[in-house]
């Protein structure tokens, strides 16, 4: 009987061998794939197993972590002043993943980033708990607060930049949401999120970065820059060749101005001061679609911008002549994010140099060592220093004695441009009130800001960039200047 016994022994050996091969296949060959599957709850358990690092504004964290009981996930994210900071931080939910900075900087915040490999290895030996690193933002708490308070219950957004560096100083979107309400993993969190998603005011939309509006008259700054850069006009106090009424090319209709304003052959300065549609519509038409696209592109239009949070691409499209003329005054198919318009103001304020906008100043390891510092970086040069200064004079006139007087700050030079963008079929809906501006001190400009208010509640006649948006911009600029003192 020994021969079959030996064969059975070999058979048993093959059974064990098959198991050994299988375990090697699962645990060696497929380990990475299995370990990172979406279905694998360990990925999320791991993310919430340690106290998450913080997002820091002005040296203080705007986030935190609390221990939760009775869940797979040990720590839950909390936010200080959640609705105000949500457009910056995004959310990080045990059940619904993460967004914006919380998602993009997840590696640093959880401590799993490759840059933190050394720290992790070290803490493995010293038996310390793994900790997350911190993300230090460029935001200015006072400016953010001023913007959030200024918008109040109104629907809208504010984006503020430091023109000299590109640092984002404020990023507000209202109505906002508190990411804390669905940070957990319970039914309550799920319901809260459902409610936010169903809300027709879209509180979870980051209007400062992800909503594009017709920029209205604020776009005339870009059109003016295009006129100066392309040599269409050189002096800002020379009369332009602008008839009134001016017929929109290839159409039978005249382009109208708001009210009865002195636009015929007006100088560039006067045209911007009164916001003459006829003058800027004609400039856009004179330059042609391609030159307008080129200049808008230098300001950042037609591409997504990563701050590192992605901002939607603002659009200045290829168009026919009448549409191009309309786009030159910020109507038609021309659309911009608030961040984009803040970049326009910033480029002008920084003598024509547009800096790359960013909101992460530093990344810190768990032991607070800095492992990354942002180096300021030029985005483009949309206009020459000389032309930028001309444009500054024009914008300062707008604030001193034009439509933007609400933005005046004592003892500070302020330049700005109002905008009232019509939208809806036949302009049936309430227009958006825009204001872009910058402040200037002896050491250059510390802040440029764009404000948009889409308030359907207000009386239509009261809606104007100067009335609704300029005071908010003023408060934001004042907050930045005061905090620098």
């Amino acid at each position, binding site marked *: 009987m*020994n021969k079959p016994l*030996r064969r059975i022994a070999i058979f048993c050996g093959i*059974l*064990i061998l098959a*198991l050994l091969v299988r375990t090697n296949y*699962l645990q060696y060959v*497929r380990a990475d794939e299995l*370990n990172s599957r979406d*279905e694998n709850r360990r990925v999320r358990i791991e993310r919430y197993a340690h106290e998450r690092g913080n997002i820091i504004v002005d040296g203080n964290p705007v986030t935190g972590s609390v221990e939760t009981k009775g869940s797979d996930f040990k720590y839950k994210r909390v936010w200080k002043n959640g609705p105000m900071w949500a457009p910056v931080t995004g959310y990080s939910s045990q059940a619904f993943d993460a967004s914006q900075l919380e998602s993009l900087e997840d590696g640093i915040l959880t401590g799993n980033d490759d840059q933190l490999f050394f720290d992790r290895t070290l803490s493995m030996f010293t038996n310390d708990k793994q900790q997350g690193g911190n993300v230090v933002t460029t935001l200015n708490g006072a400016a953010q607060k001023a913007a959030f308070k200024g918008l109040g219950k109104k629907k809208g957004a504010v984006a503020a930049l430091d023109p000299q560096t590109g640092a984002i100083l404020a990023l507000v979107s209202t109505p906002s949401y508190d990411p804390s309400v669905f940070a957990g993993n319970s039914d309550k969190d799920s319901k809260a999120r459902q409610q936010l998603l169903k809300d027709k005011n879209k509180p979870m939309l980051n209007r400062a970065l992800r909503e594009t509006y017709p920029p209205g008259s604020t776009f005339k700054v870009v059109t003016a820059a295009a006129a100066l850069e392309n040599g269409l006009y050189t002096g800002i106090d020379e009369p332009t060749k602008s008839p009134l009424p001016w017929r929109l090319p290839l159409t039978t209709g005249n382009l109208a101005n708001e009210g009865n304003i002195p636009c015929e052959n007006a100088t560039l300065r006067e045209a911007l001061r009164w916001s003459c549609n006829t003058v800027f519509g004609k400039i856009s038409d004179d330059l042609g679609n391609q030159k307008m696209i080129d200049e808008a592109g230098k300001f950042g239009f037609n591409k997504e911008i990563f701050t590192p949070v992605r901002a939607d691409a603002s659009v200045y499209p290829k168009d026919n002549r009448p549409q191009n003329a309309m786009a030159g005054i910020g109507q038609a198919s021309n659309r911009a994010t608030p961040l984009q318009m803040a970049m326009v103001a910033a480029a002008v304020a920084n003598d024509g140099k547009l800096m790359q906008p960013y909101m992460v100043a530093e990344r810190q390891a768990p032991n607070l060592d800095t492992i990354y510092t942002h180096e300021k970086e030029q985005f483009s040069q949309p206009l020459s220093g000389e032309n930028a200064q001309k444009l500054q004079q024009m914008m300062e006139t707008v604030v001193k004695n034009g439509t933007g007087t609400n933005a005046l700050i004592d003892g500070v030079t302020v330049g700005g441009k109002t905008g009232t963008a019509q939208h809806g079929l036949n302009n049936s809906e309430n227009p958006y009130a825009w204001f872009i501006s910058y402040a200037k001190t002896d050491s250059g400009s510390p802040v440029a800001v764009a404000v948009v208010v889409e308030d359907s509640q207000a009386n239509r006649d009261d809606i104007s960039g100067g009335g609704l948006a300029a005071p908010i911009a003023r408060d934001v600029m004042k907050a930045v200047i005061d905090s620098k003192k």
Partner: protein
Amino acid sequence: MSVVTNTTTIGAIDAPSRRNTELMMMAFAIAISVFAYANVGLAIDGKLPSGMFGYGAGLILLGGVAHLVVRKFAPYADPLLLPLATLLNGLGLVLIWRLDQSERLIQRAETLYGSYSPDAPKQLLYSAIGVAFFVAVLVILKDHRILQRYTYISMAVALVLLILPVFFPAVNGAKIWISLGPLSIQPGEFAKILIAVFFSGYLMVKRDALALASRRFMGLYLPRGRDLGPIITIWALSILILVFETDLGTSLLFFGLFVVMLYVATERTSWIVFGLLMSAAGAVGVASFESHVQARVSAWKDPFSCYTTNGACEQISNAIMSFGSGGTLGTGWGQGHSDLIGFAANADFILATVGEELGLAGMMAILLIYGLIIERGVRTALAARDPFGKLLAIGLSGAFAIQIFVVAGGVMGLIPLSGMTMPFLAYGGSSVLANWALIAILIRISDTARRPAPAPAPSPDAEMTQVVRP
């Protein structure tokens, strides 16, 4: 292979008893288990577990008693079987205790049953009873050939055990339990031994008829119709188990066991061909109408299907992800999330915890320990001098091997999942008891096999027949 088998006529060779080797190995097995226990405590609570002294003492007591009994009642037994079983049982206790600490499983028990009670103390009790079984078998069973007398009684009891669960309600979808008040028994585990005893006795008597009375056809020996009776009966019985008790594992185990023993007894390869054909036919036939078999097969084909379509695969996919997450070295004892498997994490799926927390290295070690036990069993069969002992030893080790393959292969997604337990590692009273008894029988056979033959009577002409080497 074994020297001992051919020595019966030569005279007493002083085979070493290897009892001291066994003692050293036992100490090693117990030390590893106690260290493992300490490791889990440190990983989960950051301090040595409070029950460590009791656990260590319990294990030393059990192992010590088992060893002393072997020393006294089976002095020539294989020295590896007992330490290997003790090591697995000790590691199993640690694994179960580790899963007892899982918040997730505690919560699950509380929401489902309103209460929670840890399993490790119960398993320790079962282990004690298991070792008592082991001792009883060694003490009572002086010679394994006594079992030959109970060939048909074994069969009758085994049949009763196998059929009884049909009359009890299904637990979690499988009818493999007999519940008597607070006690629930998985009779299949015991039936495994009884069936092996029956086959050994039956085949020992019938092997010549089965082997020789056959016609040759296309290179195969075709058995006579009347000799096909037993194999068809066993085949039908396995199919019935599968259909009525929805127990894929037990069904596979019995049929495989029978084919293996038939092949060893008759030395005819044709039986294996028949066996494979019949099991394939049975499997396909049953799968065509049994929905639970179909569900198992579809979960095996794509373990992640239920996340996109309807179906039940969470357990198997979670087990597979456990293995993947363990990687090469594992997360460390107490630091994995194998408890995500939920139900049966410490029973059928206990290997997933090994895979995740001890990694590939740990899995290979555990599988090799099982491999060693099987190998020692086969060695015992080779060494055994009587056909009954040979058949019984190969039957028991074969059953052990098939069970390991079916369970581990199922949990790792190599073959469709079937509900059986990893011997010694998994939680479960019946399993621990039956497997300790199985080891005891193997030890008894190996003792008989390795025992030196009595010295032959001195031969008057010994001097003259001395071999002269050139």
